[in-house]
């Protein structure tokens, strides 16, 4: 269904460029993509391959091969690295023939899944996407073509994505946002520019060369890009809309986008639910929120735990090999428990980070994200990450990680003094950090999000 819709789009677009690899400059037209998909489908069918695993970002040629599996109800499993292959093969239907395309090593390999394994899947998913792993426990999220198509259509309708749009994607296809950019662009008959793996230089280069109009970057990418100002702001001049996913936009960037009449959307959603809420900001003084529930979507914030719960027709179909874990994700009313913390600001949802991120300081609850949101940035320190530091007397105390920006010619010691002074003036007593740790660069997950666990573990 999804892939047939993409082939239909290809029919209309012909020689129009469908995808450009921003790093190499290579491009693929809709016509060539259609030819690749059809030829690959024949190859897969002839070899009785029902599953394609891509490791790393597939080349433009291989992308057709990955998509073609959808023409006969096979499964595409995009992975960040080869470490997950064993787990995946162990949990697939026994005896399935699997093609592994490893772009990190440039190899193609045919394997069979474990014969003894009887899959517990009710239906064959088109996509298995491993969620970000922010919790440290990545799960293989199962998605069929109908859901993926509906999700893409939801994005197209919500942000009015059309054939004139040039989408700049900085997320790999093994991440749900990378897939979102890809499918939305193809179904809307637009052009996709890939800046994968994400680099700030790649973004600036692609923006200058291809004049993108639309993107859904993750907050870490935006934070890194904001350090490149004024070049980053200049790179946004061709944009008509920018969508922030879960994390709110900084006030400086918000102001810039408003001034230049670029639509700014704040949204909330996760790999399991797709977009659940959204709001188009209309002035720079908007409260920080991620909007109100989208059409057909219900959102609850649990009164006791503050957990965000979602009921949506865009829901995924399960977790690979973890049926019981998936079932446990629902409350008695069938709402999906996201593991995220939220609050209502009137009719708008406020996203307050992961539930598990909170900790206590002498019995006082600390929400690191709330502290980080308050931090306005100081000369030499653009952003901070608040983490728990184990302490025998207080349970924990708060620690700040920061990256010292040499551009301002301030030493890390000066920055620590400034951070302390800011904390004393702006935070509650129990939130004032006891340690300020300067690092060279933020550790990132393969999807570009901050690897918070790595920072926490580095203290222990």
């Amino acid at each position, binding site marked *: 269904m999804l892939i047939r819709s993409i082939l239909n789009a290809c029919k209309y677009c012909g020689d129009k460029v469908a995808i450009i690899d921003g790093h190499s400059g290579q491009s693929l037209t809709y016509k060539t993509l259609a030819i690749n998909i059809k030829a690959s489908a024949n190859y897969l069918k002839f070899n009785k391959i029902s599953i394609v695993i891509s490791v790393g970002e597939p080349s433009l040629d291989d992308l057709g091969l990955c998509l073609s599996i959808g023409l006969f109800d096979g499964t595409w499993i995009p992975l960040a690295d080869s470490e997950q292959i064993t787990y995946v093969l162990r949990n697939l239907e026994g005896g399935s023939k699997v093609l592994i395309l490893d772009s990190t090593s440039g190899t193609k390999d045919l394997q069979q899944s474990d014969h003894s394994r009887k899959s517990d899947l009710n239906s064959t998913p088109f996509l298995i996407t491993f969620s970000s792993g922010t919790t440290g426990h990545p799960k293989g999220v199962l998605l069929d073509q109908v859901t993926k198509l509906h999700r893409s259509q939801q994005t197209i309708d919500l942000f009015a994505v059309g054939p004139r749009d040039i989408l700049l994607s900085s997320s790999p296809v093994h991440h749900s946002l990378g897939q979102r950019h890809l499918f939305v662009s193809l179904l809307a008959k637009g052009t996709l520019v890939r800046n994968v793996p994400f680099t700030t230089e790649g973004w600036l280069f692609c923006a200058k060369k291809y004049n993108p109009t639309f993107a859904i970057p993750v907050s870490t990418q935006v934070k890194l890009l904001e350090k490149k100002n004024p070049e980053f702001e200049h790179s946004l001049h061709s944009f008509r809309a920018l969508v922030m996913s879960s994390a709110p936009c900084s006030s400086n960037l918000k102001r810039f986008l408003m001034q230049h009449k670029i639509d700014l959307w704040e949204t909330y959603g996760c790999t399991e639910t797709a977009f659940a809420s959204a709001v188009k900001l209309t002035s720079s003084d908007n409260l920080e929120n991620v909007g109100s529930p989208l059409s057909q979507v219900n959102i609850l914030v649990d009164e006791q735990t503050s957990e965000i719960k979602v009921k949506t027709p865009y829901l995924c179909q399960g977790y690979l090999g973890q049926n019981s874990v998936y079932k446990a994700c629902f409350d008695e009313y069938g709402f999906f428990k996201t593991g995220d913390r939220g609050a209502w600001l009137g009719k708008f949802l406020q996203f307050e980070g992961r539930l598990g991120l909170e900790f206590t300081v*002498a019995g006082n609850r600390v929400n690191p994200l709330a502290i980080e949101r308050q931090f306005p940035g100081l000369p030499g320190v653009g952003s901070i990450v608040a983490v728990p530091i184990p302490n025998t*007397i207080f349970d924990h105390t708060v620690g700040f990680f920061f990256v010292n920006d040499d551009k301002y010619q301030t030493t890390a010691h000066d920055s620590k003094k400034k951070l302390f002074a800011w904390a004393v003036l702006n935070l509650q007593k129990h939130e004032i950090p006891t340690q300020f740790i300067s690092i060279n660069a933020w550790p990132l997950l393969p999807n570009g999000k901050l690897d918070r666990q790595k920072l926490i573990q580095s203290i222990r």
Partner: protein
Amino acid sequence: MIRADILSALEDMNSKLCGIDPQQPIYASTVLDSFEILQLITQIEVQYEISLDINELLGSKFTISDLCRVISVELQRC
């Protein structure tokens, strides 16, 4: 840095310290609560780039004089 200077610097950091006899235990004086002592320790560490033992400072017998001595020793190590 002599101890009188350290004491003066500490009182600049938190004026409540002026209300505590230097020989009186800091925590037991109840002039500063545990969070304020924690904040003071952090400020000293940030200011002088030294490391202090929080357990020691929150001990029942630890005085301002002890604190000045510890800072003095730590500064000499730097």
